[in-house]
């Protein structure tokens, strides 16, 4: 019985060329033609159930490729087709066209029904992100249960964002790429009615004039004014 860490000799596989060897282009040569790059992006996006970022595409494609341009071509090619190239945050994925959902009953994934508290909390996080727990509670006027947040995190719809630079450095919540994917949103900017809500001032975290029922949140609320606007900075 030999140790598995036996010398290189035996372990070396000699009978199949490494995958790289089949790669048609070498980095020394010019990048593949755009049509070919488009095929590559097509293959990669098709293969993955998860959205893939431009960066990831670039890492997987031969050197010198322009995944962004190839993607733009691909997107155009699939316009109006049964599957679409959709943007999910800063990533891309193939998804079936929304109007054909009725054909896919068999594939329907049953989504756990969320409680009203969870749905509202999710919406508040999406529209006000990054948002602290205290801010969520101020908006809903009721304490947010631990279970609600846990459930949303577990579903990978929300995650922790940066800490707020206010006393106590409270943690903030933001929505995830998976959230965008699930709801077919290109970005959090595309949330339905976001512009109207902002125009109506309903996304402002207006500080309560002293003595409001939620005074403990004032500190946060003041600073939170930036709210969703932060989203547009980065």
């Amino acid at each position: 019985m030999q140790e598995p860490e036996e010398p290189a000799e035996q372990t070396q596989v000699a009978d199949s060329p490494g995958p790289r060897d089949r790669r048609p282009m070498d980095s020394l040569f010019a990048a593949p033609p755009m049509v070919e790059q488009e095929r590559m992006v097509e293959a990669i996006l098709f293969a993955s159930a998860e959205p893939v970022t431009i960066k990831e595409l670039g890492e997987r494609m031969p050197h010198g490729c322009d995944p962004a341009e190839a993607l733009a071509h691909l997107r155009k090619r699939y316009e109006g087709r049964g599957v679409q190239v959709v943007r999910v945050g800063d990533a891309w994925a193939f998804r079936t066209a929304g109007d054909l959902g009725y054909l896919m009953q068999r594939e329907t994934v049953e989504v756990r029904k969320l409680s009203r508290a969870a749905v509202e909390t999710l919406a508040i996080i999406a529209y006000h992100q990054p948002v602290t727990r205290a801010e969520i509670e101020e908006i809903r006027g009721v304490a947010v249960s631990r279970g609600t947040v846990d459930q949303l995190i577990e579903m990978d719809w929300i995650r922790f964002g940066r800490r707020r630079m206010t006393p106590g450095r409270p943690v903030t919540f933001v929505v995830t790429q998976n959230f965008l994917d699930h709801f077919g949103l290109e970005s959090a900017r595309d949330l339905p009615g976001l512009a109207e809500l902002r125009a109506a001032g309903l996304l402002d975290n207006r500080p309560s004039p002293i003595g409001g029922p939620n005074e403990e949140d004032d500190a946060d609320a003041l600073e939170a004014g930036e709210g969703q606007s932060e989203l547009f900075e980065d």
Partner: protein
Amino acid sequence: MADDEPELPLSVADRVAAEALVVDVEGFEGPLDLLLNMARTQKVDLRQISVLELARQYLSFVEKAKALRIELAADYLVMAAWLAFLKSRLLLPPDPTEEGPSGEDLAAHLAFQLERLQAMREAAARLMARDRLGKDFFARGIPEGMERVRKVVYTATLLDLMQGYARIRTKDEFRPFVMDRDKVFTMEQALERMRGMIGFAGSWTDISSYMPEGWTEDPVMWRSATAATFAASLQLAKEGRLEMRQAATFAPIELRQKKDAGQGAGQTSGGVLRVAPEAPRREGQD
């Protein structure tokens, strides 16, 4: 129940609503939720609701709940106290000497909170009504996962190569470094050897005749054997087994068995060591 509210005539619908509220207090997610629900009974844009009216509604709700001995959570009562305060502010003419926000400011903020909560609920509903992944649109059913290919790249340096070659060509000399013991004659070995031989040394003999065979050619071995033999001699002299003498500095050292040797430890002081006073140890050092 609603009829003991003379100053605020309520419509039938309002009364039904109010009753429903009392019965169904558990169904509300806190005072703000309840207030929002009450505000809706005003059937106006939330921006135009009468906060005063709302405060009255809420306070009468709390009164009724108390009358019905329904336990209200603390925050319902905190809200009631705050609304009572707000109501007084709204009803009394503003006192110019008083600090702090006016009743209108407070009322406006409450209206804002209600409107915002309402807006968030609508947004939530719109969100949940969107086409959703796995329900209305779908990801690839047979994703082709990334295959992990472990590629091992072997490397070697020119030094490896040359040392490898040297290893083969000098197979006999090339070996991992260890302390060379094969050219060392230890004192233990020398003692063992001399213990066996000393019994036959009745007369003075040169110490060199006790050197092990084969250790006199190689200078390295010779040095080691000489030192060990000399040290062993000293040990045996100390034990009273032999006598040593040296005629002069650098003169040969001679040994012989001590006559009454072998009588055990009691004799230790009987060992005789006669050496020239100056640097006797040179011999052994080298």
